[in-house]
């Protein structure tokens, strides 16, 4: 295994970081997460895969850091990058009438219909779930739609808002503050505590937005 570094994340977690770009590192993150899930290590409380890192949370009363890190390093020896995101394909219907659609069109120099067709044409990969329960960071956005965050974040973005910022897109799972550009709205529930698996999306899933009127 090359280019991976293990660091403690406090006394009850560790983070494996792969060197290189997201394009190089993320397939290794997914492969490592898959290997750890299959191994069902009794000490693992939680796995958090991200762009270039995989964090492993363990119960510090049962297992110490050095034992966990050497076991994890052993397991991810000789890792091959996961060729393609292997998760489910999820379709999210969107009504593209977001309050920032006009502004996004103006800033990108595209017509509104063009913003919609470029946003809904891609199949996005789930890189990371977090920040808020069920919030999934999806990429990569069509380069023509890449804009910095709004200068003034909103105090309250309604749940179900479909938004873009930088090279990413996502859906607000709850009404929370946010600085992304709101281009549409979906009824899809991103986080439901009554579900066995409460977050709709997992790292490795692929997502397509479908325009509805």
């Amino acid at each position, binding site marked *: 295994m090359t280019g991976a570094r293990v660091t403690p994340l406090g006394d009850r977690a560790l983070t494996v970081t792969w060197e290189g770009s997201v394009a190089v590192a993320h397939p290794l993150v997914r492969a490592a997460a898959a290997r750890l899930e299959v191994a069902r290590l009794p000490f693992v409380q939680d796995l958090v895969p*991200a762009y*270039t890192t995989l964090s492993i949370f363990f119960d510090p009363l049962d297992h110490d850091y050095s034992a966990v890190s050497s*076991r994890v390093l052993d397991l991810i020896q000789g890792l091959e990058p996961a060729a393609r995101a292997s998760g489910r394909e999820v379709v999210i219907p969107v009504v593209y009438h977001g309050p920032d659609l006009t502004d996004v069109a103006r800033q990108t120099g595209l017509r509104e219909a063009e913003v919609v067709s470029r946003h809904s044409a891609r199949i996005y990969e789930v890189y*990371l779930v977090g*920040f808020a329960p069920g919030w999934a960071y999806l990429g990569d956005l069509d380069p023509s739609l890449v804009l910095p965050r709004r200068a003034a974040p909103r105090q309250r973005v309604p749940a179900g808002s479909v938004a873009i910022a930088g090279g990413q897109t996502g859906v607000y799972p709850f009404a929370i503050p946010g600085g992304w550009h709101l281009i549409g709205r979906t009824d899809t529930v991103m986080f439901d505590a009554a579900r066995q698996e409460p977050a709709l999306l997992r790292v490795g899933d692929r997502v397509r937005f479908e325009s509805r009127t």
Partner: protein
Amino acid sequence: MITVVEAPAFATIQDQGWPGLRGAGMPVSGAMDPWALAAANRMVGNPEAAAGIEWALTAGRLRVDRQATVAICGPGLEVRHAVEPGQELELPRPTGGRFLYLGVAGGFDVPATLGSRSTYLAAGLGHVIKTGDRFPIGTLRGAEPMTPAGRPDYGSRVVRVVEGPQRHLFSHGEWKKFLESEWKVSRASDRMGYRLEGGVALKAPAADLPSEATCVGAIQIPPDGYPIVLMADGPTVGGYPKLAVVITVDLPILSQRQPGEAVRLSAATIAEAQSALYSSRSTRTSAEPPEL
């Protein structure tokens, strides 16, 4: 049944939270001082993981409709009462720290979601307790009531930290500044995070990090250079560099600090953090030596 006669300014039901749902973006949440809630439960013979009331800021009053044993726990306060039917119980104003905890023998029988009875307001789970709320007392059976042990050193102003995943992005000089500054817990501190102020602003690295997992106790350095310690309801991922992480046994010392109170941070190794944790627990259980 327990009836809230007068709700404290900020009270919620909490247990030990959701430690296994970070991958879904769910913070651990639960008690800000997990030791004090576990201790209140132990004093009434409950399992440590039972739910209790966490409150802050002001006093409150409850009434029970049957005989019950309750315990109140927090910095400088560990009391058990037998309460008679119809009797009112005062929830004192927290003075020795920020939060106090009430445990009742049998536990609070409120619905569990995804394995926890904790309140996590951002996802609409639970609510801030208000006057008139009624909570059923559960039928949990634990062990014999026990005196709490392994108490955090609440009187200490020193909180131990281990180096964080992005320590290497900061110079030795910045690390020294971080450890030698006299920090104060800012008023802008809540269940999500405590801001530290009063020290010298640190020089945050310019690097643009892709977001990755955080943890409770992680100390992030945002561009303004003033540390933010992530607490129970803090986000599960973030892009700010994590210079250090508070060790598990010292988290209650920090979470119980009131706004304006001073803290100093001192460096520990992972081995020191873990042996402090084992010895705090081994006073309660005969801990097995760690192995895989």
